[in-house]
Structure formats: structure tokens, C-alpha cells
């Protein structure tokens, strides 16, 4: 009898503990998921040194970005934070922080680009919409790897859509294209 009670208590305590341990990692769809300064090493795990630059988005720069993108972005940032990343056994890369509107609010992305103006990886730094947070998933963002400014990066064309998150998916594509366009406009990429 005593043993029965003991095992029930152990079970309750154990499951309670597990539940609490699990909820310790709580995260909502909205939120800040990574700081900009963490992005270079997250997107370029082989980074050996990182240089951080902030570039003001002048009217002229915006005009050049718009021309390179061949369509206007949904949002103009006041400045761009650009990280130049030296790598151990590869050409240097760049990580740039850009924002694009999802449905109501801007989504903040860090886009990693290699010297050949190809997307290496994308990370969502901040997501402020109630729906569509699935664009943070690695398996979704993996689709952008290797894409260039010549790719449309649009759902149903070269990107697999996420049901109920089409606006966020389109925003991710615009962000990746804007990132390459800004780096090219700055002269970092050809």
C-alpha cells in the first residue's frame, strides 16, 4: 500500500517536474528571437571575425536598391546594419539586417549573403504578427539558400508557401532580395 502511494507520488512529482521543465522554454509566435549581433555567427558558423557597420539609408541608396530589386520594398529602414564576416576556409560573407512588412507590422530579418551575391541563410530576428510565425522555421528558410537577385522568391513560383502565412512568406522573399540589393548598392557585392 505504502509502495503504491509512493509510486503515485513519484509519478505525480516526476510528471509535474517534466511539465515545468518543458514550459521553461516557452516562446510565443510574436517575439524577438535573436539579437542582430548574434546573427553573423549563427548564420556563418565558421566566422573568424566580424566587423559591424551601420549605413544610413539615404535617398540615393534607396533609389539604387529599388532599381536593383525592380520593385519597391514594403518598408524603408532608416539605416542598415551590415556585418562583414571573415571566415576560416571560405570567402568573406555579409550579414545584413532588413525589415519587411508582414500583414500589419515589420518582420526583422538577418540575411547572410556570400561574395557571389547568393543567399547563404536567413534568420528571423523579430516577428510581430499574430499569425504566420512558421516563417521562422529552419526548414522553410532553407529554401532561400543559393537564391540570387534574379530569382523571384515568391510563393508558388520558386518558394513553397505556408498556408495562412502567405504575406509573411512574401515578406521573407522581399527581405532576401532587398538584402542583396542593399549590399550591391553599397558596393560590397558585384
Amino acid at each position, binding site marked *: 500500500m*505504502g509502495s503504491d*502511494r*509512493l509510486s503515485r*507520488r*513519484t509519478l505525480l*512529482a*516526476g510528471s*509535474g*517536474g517534466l511539465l*515545468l*521543465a*518543458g*514550459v*521553461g*522554454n*516557452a*516562446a*510565443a509566435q*510574436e517575439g*524577438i528571437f535573436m*539579437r*542582430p*549581433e548574434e546573427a*553573423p555567427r549563427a548564420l556563418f558558423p565558421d566566422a573568424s571575425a566580424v566587423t*559591424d*557597420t*551601420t*549605413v*544610413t539609408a*539615404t535617398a*540615393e*541608396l534607396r533609389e539604387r536598391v529599388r532599381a536593383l530589386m525592380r*520593385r519597391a520594398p514594403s518598408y524603408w529602414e532608416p*539605416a542598415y546594419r551590415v*556585418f562583414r564576416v571573415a571566415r576560416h576556409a571560405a570567402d568573406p560573407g555579409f550579414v545584413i*539586417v532588413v525589415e519587411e512588412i508582414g*500583414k500589419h507590422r515589420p518582420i*526583422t530579418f538577418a540575411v547572410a549573403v556570400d561574395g557571389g551575391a547568393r543567399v547563404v541563410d536567413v534568420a528571423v*530576428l*523579430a516577428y510581430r*504578427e*499574430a499569425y504566420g510565425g*512558421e516563417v521562422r*522555421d529552419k*526548414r*522553410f528558410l532553407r529554401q532561400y539558400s543559393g537564391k540570387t537577385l534574379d530569382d*523571384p522568391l*515568391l510563393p*508558388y*513560383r520558386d518558394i*513553397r*508557401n*505556408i*498556408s*495562412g502565412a502567405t*504575406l509573411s512568406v*512574401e515578406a521573407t522573399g522581399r527581405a532576401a532580395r532587398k538584402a542583396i540589393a542593399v549590399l550591391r*548598392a*553599397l558596393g*560590397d557585392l558585384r
Partner: protein
Amino acid sequence: MPLRAFLAWLVTIALMLDLALPISRAAAATPEELEAQLKALQQQVDALRRQIESSQAAQPPAAPVAPATPTATAPVTTVETPAPGKIERLSSIADFKLGGYGSTRFEASDLDRLNESFTFRRFVLTGDATIGGRLRGLFELELERLTELEVERTAPSEAGRRGFQQSIEGSDKSEISLEQAWVEFTLADWLKYRAGMMLVPVGRFNLNHDDNRWDLPRRSLVDRGVPVLPVTAAWSEVGMGFVGDVKTERWGTFGYQALVMNGVSLDSSIETIARGSSELETEVEIKARRGTANIDLKRDKAGALRLTWSPAPGHELGTSVYYGRYTPDFLPSEALWSVALDGKTTLGPFEVEGQYVRTHFNNIRRVARGFADAVAERAFSSGTPLDVVVEFELAGLADTKQGYWLDLRYRFFPDFLRDSLLGRGFDNPQFIVTLRGEQVWLDGLVSEIDFTNGHLTSFQQDNRHVNRVTLGFAYRPLPLVVFQTAFERTWTDRGKSLSGVTNFLPARRSEDTANTFLLGVAFGF
């Protein structure tokens, strides 16, 4: 206390402390403190910038440099400064998002009694707020075909005698409905507690019922026109439960919704008809409706569970089950259950999406017998100047209902139209061709019941089916707006009327087929 029990409690307390510490550490960095830290960092950056500007000003003016060159700003090697304006804590008020959707449709049919009509299908207002760090609230208020609702109440006086008058003016077949109003507490991605008025997670359509999400201007049969769901979509109930997602790198994303609610119940609606023959007829329709938001009509509660699996973006498979008593306490206790299987897959511009639902009402004959016993009299006359007739109808019950819809879609947009009126100014305009096939089987559909003095005297059931094929073409300039056109052919058992099995086709007794042209617009914001 035995040693093992003590150890178990100790482990729990240790785990709680382990959790509490990071929380308290996090709590130590309040938004105000973070803001203060950010301000301090911003001041340092400003000071550095001023220093750089002053050193530049000290140098002879340089030739104009293209602003797009990286030399326009000096490299800063610190990695501490957040990008300006990128990361901020939004206040709850600023974080409230108001949205909505609406749709309008024109339809022309070859049914005799269905006039060509413009229908204001619905306008739905939605609000979504992050109330606090992990607390979120949402509401969805629907105005369906509602254009006016006016209530007047007066107490007129005639020849010194006081009378009372009340009138209600409203638009035809319209309703105001609170479709959703819930609060969610995120404990973890895989464990979110939700309570309030929630969509019942049976089938993918009920959860994704916004008109502007769909490329055809009419909802599916199983969800709306010949409801196989216990209640037509959008079906919501008051309850509580847990929802969540589990993301895995290898197997994709798994999701679940597990809710307990008041649940569907047979309930009455009263319709009053003033006939030309000086008869005032009151029809009491008893049918399955969403559960009350007040004290429940029955003792037992209902439960729903939905499991989803998305192996990769664009692919999803879901299965759902609902179980609960559907009779109020004054009728014999009987349960209904629904199961659904649904999915969607995307292959480039092609999409396949579908849903199968099966609903079983236990022992409806026993329920009918109990109903006869409860009501006792079928009709009566009163001594008022008008003859008053009261009729009761047990509507829409069948032993088993099952059906499916299957959509095949192809999305495209010709390049030569990108600079045309249809393409200019839009990122990703689309044309969508949709072919939808639907079938519904109603086994043991109650076609007639009669009772006298509390005894069931007649109970007739029928087996029926309804088929529909729809071919649609839609233009979607933006994901939130769609212009739709479609042709649909609906048919049922030969020689039997469509009106007995559908809730949207007022067919005559012999009209078993309907051909309809639809033109619709749906928008969201």
C-alpha cells in the same frame, strides 16, 4: 515521510527553482531597464558619431562620395549596439491588430424559385492583441447578411387605456455571431492554454473558414451547404483546452488541439408565420446547434482532438475527432461523434487540398420518441381571433452523414500581363483555376416524424446523396483579395428535391439538379 517520496518532492522543487531562477533573471531585466540600457548605448554611439563627424569636419572637404559606398560611415567594431528601431517592446495597446474579411456574391441559377441575386455574404471584424508577454487574445465578430436590425418598443395610449407595442425590424436570413473570443496563455510552443469561444478543430475548413482564403465563391457542402459537421461552419463552442506545435528537424512539425466544451445540443428556434388564411403559425424547429454560452442544457461535456503533421512546408495532414452528448437534459442521453481526415499538398503551382468528414448521431429514433413525450401535443388552436397552430420539426438529423470535398488548383500568371492593369503594382498576382468535386451521403435522414398525445406515431427515414462539381477561375492581385467566378452543378437522387437535403437551394419538389453561375469578391485586411 518515506525517503523516496521526499526525494521526489525534492526533485520537483529543484526543477521549479531551476525554472524560477532564469525567469527571475529575465524578470530582473524589465522593459524599462532594457530601455535605459539601450538609451545608454545609444548615447555612446551618438558620442562616437559626433567624434567621427568632428574629426571629419577638421579635414579638408572631400569630393562628393556616392552615398552607397561603405566608406560613407566609419566601421564600428563593437557588436553591442542594436540596430536603431529594430528591437522594441511594443505596448499592449500598440500591439492590438484590427483586421477583418468580407465577401459579396452574385448568383444565377436555373432553379425556378431562385432569383438572380447579389448576396452580401458576410463581414467579419477580427481583433488580435498580445496582452502581455505570453498572453494573447483574439475575437472574431460576424455580421452575416446583416444590413439592419431595429428594435422599437412603445407604450401607446388609446382612449385612456395603456397598450404596449414592440417591433423588430431586420434583414432577411441575417445574423450577428461571435465566432471567436478567447485568450491564450503560452506555456511553451507545445503547450498553450486557451479558453473562451473557440473554433472546434474538426476538419481544416472550419479552422480556415475566412472567405478571402478560398478561390471559390461558395463554401463546401460538408461544411456548409449539406452540413456533415454537426453544426455549419464556422462552428465554435465555449470551452477550454490546450493547443501546440512540436517542431522536429527530421520529421517536420506536429500540432495538436485538445479542447473540452459545452458542445453541440439539440436546441429550438421559433419561427412565426402569419398566413393569408388568418392562421398564425408558429414553427418550432429543433436541430443540432452549437452549444450555449450560458448554463449548459445538458450535464455531459464534449471533447475534440485534432492532430496535424506537416512533413515539409506546403504539405499538411490532419485528423480530428469530436465526441459529445447532443441531447438536452429533457431528452434521452445520446451522443454524437465526428471524425475528419484532411490534408493539403503543394507541388510548384499545383495544389491538392481536401477533407473527409463522417458524423454519427446515436439512436435518433429514441431521441424522437423522447421528443414526442416531452412535447405531448403536436398542434392546438386557441380562442384568439387568429387560429394559432404550433408545429414542431426535428431537422437535419440522420443516423450517419459523411462526405468529402477535393480541390485541385493550378496557379499561374502570364509574364506578358505583369505590366498590364492586372499585374502592375502587385508583387505576385495570380490566376487560379480550381476544380472541386464533392459528395455527401445522408444515411437514415429523418424525413418525417409524427406524434400524438406523447406517442411517436410515424418515423420515416431516407437515404440520400448530394453531388456537386465546381469549376472556378479566380484572380488574386494580393493574397488578401480575390475576385472569383465559378460554375457549379449540384444534383441529388433522381426525382427527389434538392431542397430537402441542402440548406441553400430552394428547389421545387421535382428539381433534382441545379446549375449555378457564381461571381464573387472576397477581401481581407
